[in-house]
């Protein structure tokens, strides 16, 4: 039975790879953030396939490499839906699949404003071995990661996560603030967190020639994120916080590379996180699926 699951999962990833390399890519203009979100959604009908990694140093235990794949689809110009598959390797321990997330972002306002809100709703089905650190919430601490994978996997977490994303773009700068509220669907209190981000392309004008290394293809910035406690104990006490410079390189071939060294800001945080990611945006995914099933575009 396990072998059937593994083969099916492998088949799914192979199909994803086929999509990545076969279908028409689009030049992405992706933000460089790993944790924070801005207000830009995926273009309608486009699919972005993304792979991300986080290496984390662990005091008093084994360091880890957590990884996740995202399938981000622009359902409409005001709704983006996304599936995550997460896993991790803890050195001197094991490699485990840690769960999935289904994320939706909605743009309630039709036009662009100085501050643009986006509503974010996510369902997470994961286990306690999850280490991707995709957000800071509640009283998450570095010491939580000391538990062995075998033990941590026994904890099943069904969580709903809500975010209010407020994002502005001003003179080429994107400034974004995300407020997070998460609820484990078991009898746990609401937990809170935040993420802040600022980024800007290295050049605002596009070059008149096709180029790979033009400064407009690079977007640099910084993000900061962490937990804000829970309903019973709101605040910064026993929370972890990170500051991370971020850089994205949008290649003309449709690939985007991201890179971010992150630094823990207090003793509850991992002292160092190294994140990187690669993604490719595929245009016309909806049309392809429609044609595949014999429909009209």
């Amino acid at each position, binding site marked *: 039975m396990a072998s059937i699951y593994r083969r099916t999962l492998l088949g799914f990833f192979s199909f994803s790879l086929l999509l990545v390399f076969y279908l028409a890519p689009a030049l992405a203009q992706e933000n460089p953030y790993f944790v924070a979100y801005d207000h*830009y959604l995926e*273009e309608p009908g486009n*699919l972005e396939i993304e792979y991300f990694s986080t290496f984390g140093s662990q005091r008093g235990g084994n360091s880890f490499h957590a990884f996740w794949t995202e*399938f981000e689809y622009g359902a409409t110009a005001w709704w983006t839906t996304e599936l995550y598959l997460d896993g991790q390797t803890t050195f001197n321990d094991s490699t485990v699949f840690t769960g999935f997330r*289904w994320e939706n972002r909605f743009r309630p306002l039709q036009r662009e404003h100085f501050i643009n809100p986006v509503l974010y709703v996510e369902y997470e089905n994961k*286990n306690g071995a999850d280490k991707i650190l995709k957000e800071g919430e509640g009283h998450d601490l570095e010491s939580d990661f000391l538990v062995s994978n075998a033990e941590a996997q026994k904890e099943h977490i069904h969580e709903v996560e809500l975010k209010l994303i407020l994002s502005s773009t001003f003179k080429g700068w994107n400034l974004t603030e995300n407020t997070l509220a998460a609820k484990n669907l078991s009898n746990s209190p609401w937990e809170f967190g935040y993420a802040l981000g600022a980024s800007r392309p290295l050049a605002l004008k*596009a*070059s008149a020639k096709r180029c790979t290394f033009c400064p407009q293809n690079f977007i640099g910035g910084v993000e900061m994120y962490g937990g804000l406690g829970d309903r019973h104990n709101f605040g910064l006490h026993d929370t972890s916080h990170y500051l991370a410079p971020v850089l994205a390189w949008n290649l003309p071939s449709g690939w985007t590379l991201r890179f971010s060294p992150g630094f823990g800001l207090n003793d509850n945080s991992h002292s160092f996180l190294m994140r990187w990611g690669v993604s490719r945006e595929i245009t016309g995914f909806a049309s392809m699926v429609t044609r595949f099933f014999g429909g009209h*575009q």
Partner: protein
Amino acid sequence: MRAVAAALAVSSSFLAVSVVLAQSRSSGKPPVGAAPKYDPAIYAELQKAPEKARNRLNPLENDPDAVAAGAILFEQHCAECHGNSAEGSPKAPSLLVPEVQSATPGALFWLLTNGVVRKKMPVWSKLPEPQRWQLVRYIKSLGGRALPGDSPAPKP
């Protein structure tokens, strides 16, 4: 294993939702390759640009590289829906028609910035302002290729 099974179930659902969305978006539309019908109502959104926005001048009006840069940007971000020569497609209207070509640069910039999210046109303010103005220069440079009211067939 339950988690893997659940992941697979969600993956399948994700694909199914994509298909349903794609199908629903396509219903009643002409088949691939069909010329888009000319519908003046589609361009009514340009008239909604506030006067202040409509009267903005393109700061790159005299930039000799703006059209070439705009052409590359158009190919990268717009051609998928509007067609390689902006002739339109079943997904998005032609930009060669008089409604667009006679619109002020400010109105086109305003539409690019705000999108028409209820009608599938995304917000393009993620492109920095100078790049949006470069796109406007390119779109305006296409003027005169089509006869008024024409709905040119897309390139093969």
